[in-house]
């Protein structure tokens, strides 16, 4: 499978998103990747029945997509991204399209408004909007529909605004191109639209540029643009997946409020079942380019018909669902023995001087915790909370300003060179992004052997045998040993990264957001694997994540980081069930999928 399957931007971490174009390049980047998944275990025709019958006969649908087929032209010929999509939206209705990357959900959304990326072509089907087939319209007529009757809220707010034009002008443009207002009036209405979208100080913001706003604020600007002309339908393409969870909830609440107030229908594209469950009346599930199931949200999520939907729901992390493994009964090592002890860890970064003198940023502020042998300790926090900096200090990749890191009582931060190397051997790291953490020129075997070579463990033949054994242990077939990372899927690459981390038989494996760049079903597999390896090898994990639902599945104890401070820590169940700090409560409340009477994940 090609590397295009997972989009980096799907990772909700936005540290690197500020001012830079993140790894996502919208639908165009993944278009060829969609090819890789097509054609396996989907049942054609499963889509037909439920779609049509679920529409109430009394009301004509606002949008009715029938038999849509979209293909992309690539260097290897044409590949189908969408093979059979049927979606309909009633006036004022919220419909969610759910699917993993490569399912064709985003392509469907873009095909509706004729905004397919270069190389994309609609092969068949109809897109009836207010009884007109949008596919048959000339570009000029279609333009009159875009923005005016159908608004689009794009995926990644940080790059979806023109960086060199003022916010107000960009909002006003939506009104101007449709001749709804001009000049001063357009500017005033733009400010009003920004206000309505929940942007504080709209008049000031209108004069600012996108780089001066946060991701959440940019998304509000995009909402203002999409709703400025009071469209009848809004297509929201993963509107919050690039944002922090707490911001995500506020934005979704606001979109819901506004569309409800204006009677606007919404087609919500999301990979997150929880979001779909919370927001939509009807849910459409897509897989490998076709709609496999659709119906009322309640029914689809609690009583799924299609096996794919069932798998998707089972894999979705949530607060109430199963844990990856039942708590092991065994307790061979006394759990009191600390493996890693972190005390009073502080990291300050120098900021550019101002007139008041030198300034520093306290990225990590007095963090202390312990990880005991054989246990999983999770550090949870949003972007900028200091969790990655903490990890880098523990691994000795960054020198702490203050504080100590002890492995079984020995200080890691100030040892001699030789001792540091010996200590480092006992801690290994699994990175967030399996695409970046593997050298593209190495074969899988070379990648896994590398730590062994570095510490001169065994002969070349022994190293090779060990690599093969490790690859087997992470449940990959032996033939991947000769492949390069580019030939593997995201989940396979992460398994390779785990195998490399285990090569030196470390006591502690630090997992830095190991699943946040992966699709949910793959996430579940990786978490399963990590859990199984812990049972088999007795390693400890320091697990870093922004996602409490994921943490819940794997961690024994959890610490919540906020702005560099550890605001709460304790046993995982206890913290999640009875959080003491308001921030923890906010984090828990922000997890999607909690508004349903019968919570998600209870099905399996």
């Amino acid at each position: 499978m090609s590397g295009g399957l997972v989009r980096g931007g799907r990772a909700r971490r936005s540290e690197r998103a500020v001012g830079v174009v993140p790894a996502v390049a919208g639908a165009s980047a993944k278009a060829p990747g969609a090819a890789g998944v097509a054609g396996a275990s989907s049942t054609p025709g499963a889509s037909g029945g439920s779609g049509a019958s679920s529409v109430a006969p009394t009301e004509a649908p606002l949008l009715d997509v029938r038999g849509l087929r979209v293909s992309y032209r690539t260097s290897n010929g044409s590949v189908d991204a969408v093979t059979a999509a049927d979606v309909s939206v009633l006036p004022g209705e919220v419909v969610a399209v759910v699917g993993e990357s490569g399912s064709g959900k985003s392509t469907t959304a873009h095909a509706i408004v004729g905004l397919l990326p270069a190389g994309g072509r609609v092969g068949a089907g109809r897109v009836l909007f207010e009884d007109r087939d949008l596919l048959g319209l000339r570009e000029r007529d279609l333009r009159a529909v875009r923005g005016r009757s159908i608004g689009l809220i794009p995926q990644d707010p940080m790059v979806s605004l023109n960086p060199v034009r003022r916010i107000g002008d960009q909002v006003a443009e939506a009104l101007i191109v449709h001749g709804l207002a001009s000049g001063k009036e357009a500017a005033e209405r733009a400010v009003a639209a920004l206000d309505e979208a929940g942007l504080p100080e709209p008049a000031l913001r209108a004069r600012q540029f996108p780089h001066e706003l946060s991701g959440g604020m940019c998304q509000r600007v995009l909402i203002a643009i999409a709703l400025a002309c009071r469209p009848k339908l809004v297509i929201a393409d993963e509107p919050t997946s690039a944002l922090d969870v707490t911001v995500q909830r506020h934005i979704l609440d606001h979109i819901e409020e506004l569309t409800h107030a204006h009677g606007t229908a919404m087609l919500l594209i999301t990979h997150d079942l929880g979001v779909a469950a919370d927001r939509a009346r009807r849910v459409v599930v897509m897989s490998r380019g076709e709609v496999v199931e659709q119906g009322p949200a309640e029914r689809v999520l609690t009583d799924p018909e299609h096996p794919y939907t069932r798998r998707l729901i089972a894999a979705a992390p949530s607060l109430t669902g199963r844990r990856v493994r039942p708590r092991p009964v065994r307790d061979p090592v006394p759990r009191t023995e600390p493996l890693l002890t972190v005390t009073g860890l502080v990291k300050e970064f120098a900021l550019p001087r101002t007139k008041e003198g030198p300034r520093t940023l306290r990225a990590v502020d007095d963090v202390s915790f312990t990880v005991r042998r054989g246990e999983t300790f999770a550090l949870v926090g949003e972007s900028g909370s200091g969790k990655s900096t903490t990890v880098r200090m523990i691994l000795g990749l960054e020198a702490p300003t203050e504080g100590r890191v002890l492995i079984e009582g020995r200080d890691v931060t100030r040892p001699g060179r030789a001792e540091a190397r010996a200590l480092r051997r006992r801690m290994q790291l699994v990175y967030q992004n399996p695409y970046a953490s593997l050298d593209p020129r190495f074969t899988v075997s070379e990648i896994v052997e590398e730590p062994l070579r570095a510490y001169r463990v065994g002969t070349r033949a022994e190293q090779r045998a060990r690599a093969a054994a490790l690859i087997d242990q992470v449940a990959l077939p032996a033939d991947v040993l000769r492949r390069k990372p580019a030939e593997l899927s995201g989940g396979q690459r992460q398994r390779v990264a785990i195998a490399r981390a285990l090569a030196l038989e470390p006591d502690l494996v630090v997992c830095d957001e190991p699943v946040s760049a992966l699709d949910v079903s793959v996430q579940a597999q990786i978490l399963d694997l990590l859990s199984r390896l812990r049972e088999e090898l007795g390693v400890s994990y320091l697990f870093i994540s922004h996602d409490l639902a994921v943490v819940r599945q794997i961690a024994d104890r959890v610490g919540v980081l906020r702005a560099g401070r550890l605001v709460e820590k304790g046993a995982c169940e206890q913290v999640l069930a009875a959080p003491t700090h308001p921030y923890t409560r906010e984090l828990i409340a922000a997890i999607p999928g909690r508004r349903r009477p019968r919570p998600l994940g209870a099905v399996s």
Partner: protein
Amino acid sequence: MRGYLLRRLLQAVVVLWAAFTVSFVVLYLLPGDSLSIRLGGLEGTATPAQIDAVRAEYGLDDPLYLQYAHALGDALGGDLGRSAQTGAPVVRTIADALPQTLALTGCAMVLAVLGGGAVALAATFTRVRALRQVLLSLPAIGISMPGFWVGLLLVQVVSFQWGLLPAMGNEGFESLVLPAITMALPAGAMIAQVLAKSLTTELAEPYVETARAKGAGRVRIHLRHALRNASLPALTLAAVVAGNLLMESVVVETVFSRAGVGRLTAAAVDTQDLAVVQGVVLLAAVVFVVVALVVDLLYPLLDPRVGRTV
């Protein structure tokens, strides 16, 4: 703002000093007998007394750092020495030749920006695949052609076959046309290449999709959204393009037998008139510094992300 300007000026002075030093090193310290060069090929006939006189005059017996200090001191006073060929001061020699070359370079720059910009805009705007392919291949062809050859071809066709424009000389605007076109070709191709590439990149950016989703038309998206973002990388090239353009005059002025800094340079290299060569190097550095300064001052106006206080 004043602090910023001051700092930029200081930087400019440092670059000029460094350019002086680099050219001093290249011209006077590399293997090669600077004495015989300064004697201008007379060493065969010169008496030992004459040679000593020349050595003393140029301070060639002094240690290197003293030679360097002298030269630098003179340069600060606006004296870059005298031409070994004509004996005239280098600064005046260059100043006399400069207006002709500036006029030529200016015309060429305008042609290059207009032509290059038009090709890039047309290539990215057209929806006819064949036309786009042709337009996109133009810059590559333009960059690949030797300037002196293009000049000779133009002379051959326009001057001799059609009898339209003069083939050589400095007389009037007409004599400017062919050299300006010759010079503009590689520069225009470079501009077209960079601009077409960045326009293509910008048009695939998500913000363009946002604009399309608003219902904005293609012309509006092209000119109002993409062009401004796309011109930023092209702008950073301006100083390099201006410098290259200036030096293309060496070839072009030779082909068209025009007087100017280019011809002067070619002649100076030919006779190993090092003082003049160093003067031209410093001129090029001045041009680079000035254009870079102008671009830096313009940049924040075009890109709000770049603060003025950087």
